[in-house]
């Protein structure tokens, strides 16, 4: 063993000697989903995941801790029929609480962490960096700085430009993702107007491909400002309204502006102790002389079989969750998808409706089952149906 190897071995021994081994918690989670897709052709698909995770406190009071999670993915996609396999380090998070006095508490997460904006529609993914969480008498503050370029391109979620999609289409076991620097600052003021909370958030991402000397077809830099107001309208009835303003520049053959917005209103009614009914409307700017398509950092499809994102979209949704007993959950929702404005003169803005239902069973504490059924009824195409069964087992 050379000197470098000996140093590494000593460091590893020191690290594990410092960990309180009695408090080390670890596990393996196996998730297997099989489904059938009734479209133009009937096709089977599978999605299998094996996660190995561990958590350990780094002190006696468990205020500082380490959490690691890695996943092996193996999936047979319905449309292509190809079986793909890849690995990902989902989480490697060191959590510290450097400030915890009467009147203030500041926690810090660093490493590969999960993050999301307050709506979940701008960014909602893993990222390499650090996020501080502060709790004060006036409210809460979050601040994040991160980089997406070390994530596995096949699981990054950060899909904004043509280059990002090309990177994500790799066959490599591990390919580096979009080189984007991301920053976010969030301020929450509880009960600022009656019992309503106000949340203000600023999020931005800067495409580093040019700065790092990488080849590119497009460069996209964007910033988002969000305001959200939420609180009770009546006992057990809660309203959330959010507005996101996006601005940015897309550089390709020339510069294009990326001004857009997303407006959201959601009503949650807890009809009983085990029943919730909700309705939600999301409207994003239509492309015109001033606005472009809403372009979030993390791509998310707006439906299950409706795979388009939230750009150029008007979505109205109603749904419910009923938990008759603690070991069974029933959920049902109906979503209508529309264009935010007339695309072709005289044509309807309606695009299609999706009906989604699911049953979740807690068979044992270490075994959960979920059955799902989706029906998509597009305006101009044939209907599509999908049914699946998913089992999640903890070892």
């Amino acid at each position: 063993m050379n000197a470098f190897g000996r140093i590494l071995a000593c460091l590893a021994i020191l690290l594990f000697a410092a960990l309180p081994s009695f408090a080390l918690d670890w596990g393996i989670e196996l998730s297997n989903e099989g489904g059938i897709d009734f479209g133009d052709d009937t096709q089977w698909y599978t999605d299998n995941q094996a996660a190995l995770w561990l958590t350990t406190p780094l002190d006696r009071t468990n205020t500082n801790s380490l959490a690691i999670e890695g996943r092996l993915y193996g999936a047979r996609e319905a449309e292509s029929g190809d079986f793909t396999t890849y690995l990902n380090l989902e989480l490697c998070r060191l959590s510290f609480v450097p400030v915890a006095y009467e009147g203030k508490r500041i926690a810090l997460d660093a490493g590969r962490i999960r993050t999301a904006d307050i709506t979940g529609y701008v960014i909602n993914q893993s990222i390499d960096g650090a996020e501080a969480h502060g709790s004060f008498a006036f409210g809460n503050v979050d601040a994040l700085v991160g980089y997406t370029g070390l994530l596995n391109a096949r699981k990054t979620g950060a899909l904004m430009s043509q280059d990002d999609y090309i990177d994500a289409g790799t066959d490599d076991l591990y390919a580096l993702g979009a080189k984007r620097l991301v920053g976010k600052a969030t301020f929450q003021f509880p009960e600022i107007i009656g019992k309503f909370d106000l949340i203000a958030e600023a999020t931005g991402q800067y495409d580093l491909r040019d700065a790092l000397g990488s080849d590119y077809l497009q460069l996209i830099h964007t910033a988002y400002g969000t305001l959200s107001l939420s609180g009770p309208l009546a006992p057990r009835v809660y309203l959330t309204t959010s507005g996101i303003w996006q601005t940015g520049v897309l550089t390709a053959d020339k510069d294009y502006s990326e001004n857009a917005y997303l407006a959201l209103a959601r009503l949650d009614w807890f009809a009983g102790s085990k029943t919730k009914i909700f309705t939600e409307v999301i409207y994003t700017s239509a492309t015109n002389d001033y606005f472009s398509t809403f372009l979030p950092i993390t791509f998310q499809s707006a439906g299950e079989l409706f795979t388009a994102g939230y750009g150029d979209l008007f979505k109205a949704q109603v749904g419910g969750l009923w938990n008759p007993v603690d070991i069974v959950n029933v959920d049902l929702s109906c979503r209508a998808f529309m264009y935010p404005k007339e695309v072709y003169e005289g044509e309807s803005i309606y695009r299609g409706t999706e009906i989604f239902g699911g049953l979740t069973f807690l068979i044992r504490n270490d075994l959960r089952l979920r059955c799902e059924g989706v029906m998509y009824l597009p305006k101009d195409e044939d209907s599509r149906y999908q049914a699946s069964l998913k089992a999640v087992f903890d070892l």
Partner: protein
Amino acid sequence: MKLSKICIVILAIAVSVAPAFALAGQVVTVSGKVEMQTGSGAWKPLKAGDSLESGSMISTGFKSEATIKLGASILTVRPLTRMTLNQLVEKEDTVETEVFLEVGNVKAEVNSLNGKKNGFSVKSPVATASVRGTVLEVGDFLVVYEGTVQYKSVTGQTRHGSAGEQLNTISGAVTSPVNQLSNAMHVIALNNTPMSENLSPILATAPSLAPVAADVGAATIPPVIETVTSFEIN
């Protein structure tokens, strides 16, 4: 003359300071193993009719409960609870009661004594519930049965809970009532790995916001977008 000046000053202080009388709590009912710590530090069994002075510490065992009358208010000490009666004082126009809840749950029915206002608070290591004319239960979280309760975390952050609402604290922040209603529904989480944990007090306490999705971006990559939908900067 000097003595008379001193007498006048003492009289003035006595008149200006509102009189405060220490009240004693009274144990109404006891079931199971309920003990009180005496001044010497020893524990003695508590029985109905015993009186409680300020500073008394009470402990209840498994399947044990005690009901205590504090002025006109009724305090029910739930099983596996340890609490201290910090203060029970009747002032000129208020009755001040303060309970420190070290661990467990207490239910309080706060009533007015002699038509006076109530300053009733239950403190715990993570939060303080301040109430006036209310029925509530405090422990791992706050449950409001009647009236309104101000719930204050160790960081000084406050929210108000109304009848039928529950409040909790997470990392020094007080959750919105909608979070507790959602938790009480016992939604089955398919994934229980560290990745599904939410460490942001904002995402954990804000009402009705999108949850952190564990599976975003996986196997849902759409085809490359060829068209540029933006418009040109002049």
